[in-house]
């Protein structure tokens, strides 16, 4: 009792004012800044000008943040990375690499969200989210031509959380970043203009399960704190090196933290939200979630295991190996029988989470760099694929049922061809980014002594290939249906997003060297 008071008394005169390295944090600060600015825009800018203003602010802000990331690179190159904000944030290679990736994915995602040429009534989002589906208010809002613009600040908040997520150097910051990232996404999920019941259901499920997983995560943090007396990753690492007693706290804690992170990456058995949420959410948001969230979450997972628990390799590897295996198998197997494009892509993303875990489990430098590379490759392919999904429409909105895609290759060879490229990349066919990524993680895993994962990975790739191929068959080798969906010609924004996706897919397939180089140099975590 007395010691607590003593502490408080000490603190009063000994705790120095924290110094914050604003420059090093600038990418995150900029994004959070534009998010706040977005809220202000929503409040003060007249309705007609909001869309453009939001776009300018968001895109400009992200571009600026990206510039900031670039500007930080030389410094990190020299120092090998620094800890900023009193140990809360690590600004090192992986951080900058992933932040850069996230910002690019964010820009592309915002382009997709801003698309207004596809939907006759406006964009992909409900004009008034609060109005009940099918109610009078909703019709009124639609008739008034209301457009949702709150998505931009929400997306920027989420993106800010994502930027912080892989940079967080203590578990508290990690938790906060997790929530900052997740809360806006819960809302974004529920904003779809069409099929609102599905959208709301997705939001509810995502929210409840997300909160549930946060609780596990937080409890794990508590246990690790209890074990080591600190939430800073480097101090936990030190603590695991020394003491031998009371390891149960450590082991249970690390497992529960891992659960929280594995939930975010969508690994089995914490994947069950993924298909429902991916299917129900507005497609641009699904793309954003599937790509950016995964990138951020894997970044955090990497940092957590590589920085906090490098000495615990032999404890977490068997568990993670098991998770990786079931993730690959379940994702690939269940995807075979899916009939909805978005749902199939969701299961595919689960399988891919397994492949990425394979690289992570290597627990060496190659493991980190290969994971980073895979994330870039995967992020752009995924966004591109979901972007294509937004184009194939019929009277009910997006035609996501696979049977509706029959003969698409005959009607619009270009769109079908592009989608085929993405599918082939997912399948890991050589000369696409998917192959480079897969090869990188398999090589790292084999090098790191995880040969069994490579074998399972290879077999699952074969199973996975089956359903990607099935879609290609459907698109190219089936007769088009008379009442089939049409491919709407999008504005330059979606076009640019898809074009970027294809470019990255092909370039990373043929000349992956520069990005691999970058990932290689970026793969050193600061401790």
């Amino acid at each position: 009792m007395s010691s607590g008071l003593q502490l408080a008394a000490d603190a009063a005169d000994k705790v120095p004012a924290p110094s914050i390295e604003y420059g090093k944090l600038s990418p995150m600060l900029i994004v959070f800044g534009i998010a706040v600015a977005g809220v202000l825009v929503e409040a003060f800018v007249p309705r007609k000008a909001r869309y453009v203003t939001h776009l300018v602010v968001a895109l400009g802000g992200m571009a600026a943040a990206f510039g900031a990331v670039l500007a930080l690179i030389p410094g990190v190159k020299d120092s090998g990375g620094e800890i900023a904000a009193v140990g809360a944030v690590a600004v090192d290679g992986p951080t900058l690499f992933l932040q850069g990736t996230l910002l690019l994915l964010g820009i592309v995602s915002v382009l997709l969200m801003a698309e207004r040429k596809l939907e006759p009534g406006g964009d992909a989002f409900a004009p008034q989210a609060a109005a009940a589906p099918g109610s009078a208010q909703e019709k009124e809002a639609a008739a008034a031509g209301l457009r949702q613009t709150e998505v931009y600040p929400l997306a920027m908040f989420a993106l800010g959380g994502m930027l912080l997520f892989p940079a967080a150097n203590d578990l508290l910051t990690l938790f906060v970043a997790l929530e900052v990232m997740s809360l806006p996404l819960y809302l974004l999920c529920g904003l779809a203009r069409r099929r609102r019941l599905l959208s709301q259901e997705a939001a509810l499920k995502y929210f409840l399960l997300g909160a549930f997983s946060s609780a596990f995560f937080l409890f794990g943090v508590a246990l690790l704190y209890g074990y080591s007396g600190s939430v800073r990753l480097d101090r936990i690492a030190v603590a695991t090196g020394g003491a031998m007693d009371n390891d149960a706290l450590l082991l249970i804690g690390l497992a529960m933290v891992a659960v929280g992170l594995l939930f975010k990456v969508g690994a089995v058995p914490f994947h069950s939200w993924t298909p429902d949420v991916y299917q129900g959410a507005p497609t641009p948001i699904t793309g954003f979630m599937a790509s950016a969230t995964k990138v951020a979450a894997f970044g955090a997972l990497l940092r957590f295991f590589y920085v906090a628990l490098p000495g615990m390799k032999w404890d977490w590897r068997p568990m993670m190996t098991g998770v990786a295996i079931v993730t690959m198998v379940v994702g690939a197997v269940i995807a075979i029988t899916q009939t909805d494009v978005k749902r199939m892509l969701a299961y595919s993303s689960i399988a891919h989470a397994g492949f990425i875990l394979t690289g992570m489990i290597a627990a060496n430098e190659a493991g980190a760099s290969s994971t980073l590379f895979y994330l870039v490759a995967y992020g752009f392919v995924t966004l591109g694929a979901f972007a294509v999904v937004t184009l194939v429409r019929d009277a009910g909105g997006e035609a996501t049922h696979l049977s509706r895609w029959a003969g698409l290759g005959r009607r619009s060879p270009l769109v079908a061809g592009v989608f085929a490229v993405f599918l082939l990349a997912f399948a890991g066919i050589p000369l696409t980014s998917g192959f480079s990524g897969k090869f990188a993680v398999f090589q790292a895993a084999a090098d790191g002594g995880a040969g069994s994962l490579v074998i399972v990975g290879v077999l699952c790739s074969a199973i996975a290939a089956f359903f990607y191929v099935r879609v290609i068959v459907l698109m190219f080798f089936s007769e088009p249906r008379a009442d089939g969906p049409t491919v709407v010609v999008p504005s330059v924004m979606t076009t640019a997003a898809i074009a970027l996706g294809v470019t990255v897919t092909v370039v990373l397939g043929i000349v992956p060297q520069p990005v691999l180089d970058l990932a290689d140099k970026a793969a050193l975590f600061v401790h």
Partner: protein
Amino acid sequence: MSGNFPWLTVLAAVPFAGALLVAAVPAGKRALAKNVALLVTLVELALAIAVTVKFSPNGDRFQLTENHTWIKQFGVHWALGVDGIGVVLILLTAVLMPVLVLASWNDADAPQVRMDGTVGDTAAPRSTHAFFALMLAVEAMVVVSFAATDIFVFYVFFEAMLIPMYFLIGGFGGAQRSYAAVKFLLYNLLGGLVMLAAVVALYVATADADLGGAGQGTFDLMRITQAVGTGELNLNPTAEKAMFLGFMFAFAVKAPLWPFHTWLPDTMTEATPGIAVLVTAMVDKVGTFAMLRYCLALFPNASKTFAPLVVTLAIIGIIYGALLAVGQTDIKRLIAYTSISHFGFIIVGIFALTSQGQSGATLYMVNHGFSTAALLLVAGFLISRRGSKTIADFGGVQKVAPLLAGTFLVAGLATLSLPGLAPFVSEFLVLVGTFSRYQAAGIVATFGIILAALYVLVLYQRTMTGPVKAGVEKIRDLNVRELVVVAPLIALLLVLGVYPKPVLDVVNPAVDDTLSQVEKTDPAPSHPIEQVAAVTPLGGNK
């Protein structure tokens, strides 16, 4: 030209560029697209001939080599180089392509056949451009596969080839083409993925041996084989066997070796004749070529361990393929099974580990390319005229289309390895090579020649001879374009039958080198003839 001219890269780039060029031809101009494709294949042929001329048979094992870092992190180099085996197969590819383009001239223009067998909308024919562009892409990838001296480069193109093939099969074939295309892709993809695991494992092993320097591994074939030879890379036997099986699985599916063959009949039945030739004459050859180049050189001990097993499977394949061919009722399916039988010969020749077997197998790859191309293309002309692939729908064609029947017979005779035609030489070499190592296997394989006669002659008898059947009387004889397609093939079959020496001279040094890598020598004759001075044979050796 300077000595550093990147011949092989150009050789690979020309068809790639050609593919893009064809794809870029404005949509309505089909004839232009075809002509461009033909021109590109002819340019490629000229280049391939130039490469062959530049290649000196008695020089280094690998010539015209190029080596540039491609993906440093993976230890990958854009490394190309040809040995005698590679150069011969590249030439085969280059020679066959113009023939195939010409043979497929109208195949892509015809309206699509629906899944239920009815003819689709004539107003919406398929893309001629895509057809020829994809064919050229396949050619490029096949060429790279034959020229690669980096395992990764080989693997990438070996696998990537599946995609254009897949679209060619699934987009332009018969009623069941979609099923066939998926089967083709999945079988081969599975094989390729298993190989991927082995490729990765091999890299890790080379990294452990520090072959790439600085703790890195390497995919450089020459470096690895050298290290294997010197013992610098000493794989433990279990790992070596596992890797061998991983590589071999992919090649066995591709080749195809019994019992991994079941995709081939479907593919060849459903694909257009030109594409079927593309599969069996070139793409599949990459599999057998890779056995020879990669399996043996990289894993000599495992190769020796598994050789009896592979030989057994191949022998089964010879007899099995031939028997099934006899039992078929569909012309193209029959030809597909003959190919399975022939691939059995090729593989048996490779794994007999004798110089006759391997040179024979290499020559067999070339000859089989020509003979199957001739047989399938003529069969294709026949089928397109009658609109049926069923043997029973034919009869008496010889009466109405003697030229067609005659070329079909010559192609058939080549398929049954009639002496005087090219396949005989290779088949005999394979059999001799096999017999000298595995006597029983050699004899069983020889039964294949009887069955070959059976399936070819039964096919010929049922389709070409006898009274003219209803529906056959309208069959026209070959036209000029078709004659131009078949004539060079038949000419090559004849020339290589009586004078295969140029090919063998190029192939032999590479084969000898391969055998020395496996540390095998030809079995010596048990009782060599004693040369008595007084009666020195004067005509014996030249």
